[in-house]
């Protein structure tokens, strides 16, 4: 169990995170927030890369700073921008990382080969990484994070650069991994976590906004998401009055997906739809006037949108 207790983080005078209380058991946790919301900082704190300015992070009841090497032993980490020497082959690169993870040479080789096969890079394991596409590099990154069969796996934007097929395969991998360990991944691509994550953590203004199952989070917008056919003249009015979640050009007008404030009486022509996680994301992180932030920063069904 990874426990975040009253954690805050400042860079100089800038407060990035504040009063976070979280618990991560076995399973997949998706960290959802727009860019600059403190996702990467939180992941770095969880990986032990940064010390919190206030509060503490515990693994199995012991602070990460005390566990030190023992924590790193069970940790797998994929940074947002992970590095490599372009002239290295993925196999050589994996073997280097296996060595600094303390694996013996034979195990390092077999595990590296096994993981490169898992991310479908087995056939190019002897090719220089400078010839790889962004997606292939990202898959090497995912493979390296799994080298030591970690109990805590932290992945920062793991799907960046992956094509839809690779994303689907990655989601399947995540589900399998989450059965035996704690997997925490950050993303701003909602579909990456919607199906694979057991719980979603959403941050707002450096504080925890919600941590719950995806279905429960979607319910927060239940009865407030609609679709409607609109003409060119109607659409501008909708854009200013409601939160736009999607729009598609159709013959003779537009099809709009939008969310309304609680208590709004829907028009007859509107068709109510089930809200998805992306709808919640867009609704919560919409451009707001100063001071107009969602009320309540508490967990579960007490959250008001």
């Amino acid at each position, binding site marked *: 169990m990874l426990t975040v207790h009253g954690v805050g983080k400042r860079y100089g005078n800038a407060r990035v995170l504040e009063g976070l209380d979280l618990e991560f058991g076995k399973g997949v946790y998706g960290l959802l927030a727009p860019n600059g919301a403190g996702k990467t900082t939180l992941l770095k704190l969880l*990986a032990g890369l940064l010390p919190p300015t206030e509060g503490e992070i515990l693994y199995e009841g012991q602070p990460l700073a005390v566990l030190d090497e023992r924590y790193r032993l069970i940790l797998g980490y994929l940074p947002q921008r992970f*590095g*490599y*020497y372009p*002239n290295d082959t993925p196999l050589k690169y994996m073997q280097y990382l296996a*060595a600094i993870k*303390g694996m*013996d*040479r034979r195990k390092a080789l077999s595990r590296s080969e096994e993981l490169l096969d898992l991310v479908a890079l087995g056939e190019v394991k002897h090719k220089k990484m400078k010839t790889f596409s962004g997606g292939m590099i990202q898959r090497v990154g995912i493979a390296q994070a799994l080298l030591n069969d970690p109990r805590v796996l932290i992945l920062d934007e793991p799907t960046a650069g992956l094509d839809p097929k690779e994303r689907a395969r990655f989601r399947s991998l995540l589900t399998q991994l989450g059965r035996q360990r704690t997997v925490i991944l950050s993303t701003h691509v909602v579909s990456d976590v919607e199906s694979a994550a057991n719980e979603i953590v959403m941050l707002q203004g450096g504080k925890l906004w919600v941590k719950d199952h995806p279905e429960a989070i979607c319910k927060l917008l239940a009865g407030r998401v609609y679709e409607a056919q609109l003409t060119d003249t109607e659409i501008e009015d909708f854009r200013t009055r409601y939160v736009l979640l999607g729009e598609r050009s159709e013959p003779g007008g537009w099809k709009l997906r939008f969310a309304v404030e609680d208590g709004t009486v829907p028009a007859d022509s509107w068709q109510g739809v089930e809200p998805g996680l992306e709808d919640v994301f867009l609704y919560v992180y919409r451009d707001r006037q100063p001071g107009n932030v969602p009320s309540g920063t508490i967990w579960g069904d007490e959250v008001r949108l």
Partner: protein
Amino acid sequence: MNPSGSAWRLNLRLVGLEFQKLFMLKRLGLTVFILLCGGLWLYPFQVLYPNSQFPDYETTIAAGMKAKYGTLIDDREWEAFKQDRVKKVAEADAYIREDPLFASANLDSYERYVRRAQMPNGGTQPLDAHIRAGTKKELFAKLHAEEEWIKRYEDDYRWTVGPGTIWMNEAEKQRLQEIEARDGVSVLPQRQIYHYASSGILYRLAMTAMLTTVLLVMHIHIGDRRAGLDELQRTSRMGKNRLLWIKTTAALLTGTLVSAVLLVILLIAYRFSEAWSLMGADISGRFGGFFMYDLTFLQYILLTYSAVFGLSWIAALLTAFYSAIAPNMQVLVMAIILTLFIFFKEDWILTRLLNMLLYSGISLLEPTLTVAGLLLLGVFLISVAGKWRTWRLHR
């Protein structure tokens, strides 16, 4: 499996992997290119294989004597040497007698020619030039070198009570007596000591070793940071601090390897030169110099060359420190240039240190302590680099 044994094996493997990174083909190529441009490492070949314009007859004479008499020349052997020389003088006499230019200068023997040449207004310059352009150039040059040789052997005043000796302390005077009490005089010529010392071979090889070490080691930390490996290393089991020391070991091994390669180059340069036969000769003697230690020339070279290893280690430690803390390559390069300048600047660290070693009428303790002090400073700075990183994270 013994856990500590496997930890050692793992550390060694990591050092090996760091080594591979430092010796990347591209970097190695750049280093070799820079060294070739500088050409410092070629210096031993330049001085040990003089061209015909500036031949080293002193070493030729010494090598010839060593072949005939061994490394110590006694009085009997000295007489034999002078006897051999008589034949050469006769050959020079014959040449002078037959040459009309010498006749017009009223000279009929080599001895008179030499005496005239030593006069303040002897007017032998045209004759000297005439000899240098003629077929007996080498004969005259060798005879001249032998004269210097004889002077040095027979001039007791200069060696035992000359101006230098009045500054000697009791221990040095006693040492002088010991050298004089031997059965003969060491055949090693002063020129060989001069080639090796002064601003000669050792100085240039030390510069080469430091420069090469710096060029190879400078990427050791900053290279990983630039490649973006930093976070992966910090979250690995080894952690950044243990990797810091593993990298430091790799840097020190690089310095060792560079120094060892240069030592091999030096020994190859000597092996195929005339000086090789003089390696067993004592460094102290009328032909060579005055040293407090009983060392052969080879022992002296190996002992003093240890300074090159020490300086390479210092260069490796300082460069690793800069590489760990420099925010970018520009700052790193500036720091390295400044450090090398401080080391290489005439009469500053490098020259002073080597002079302490090379002309050691004084104790070896002083240069040893200097090198040890600089090494300790390097180790201290590396530990500072580790703490500095932690401090930055907590800011």
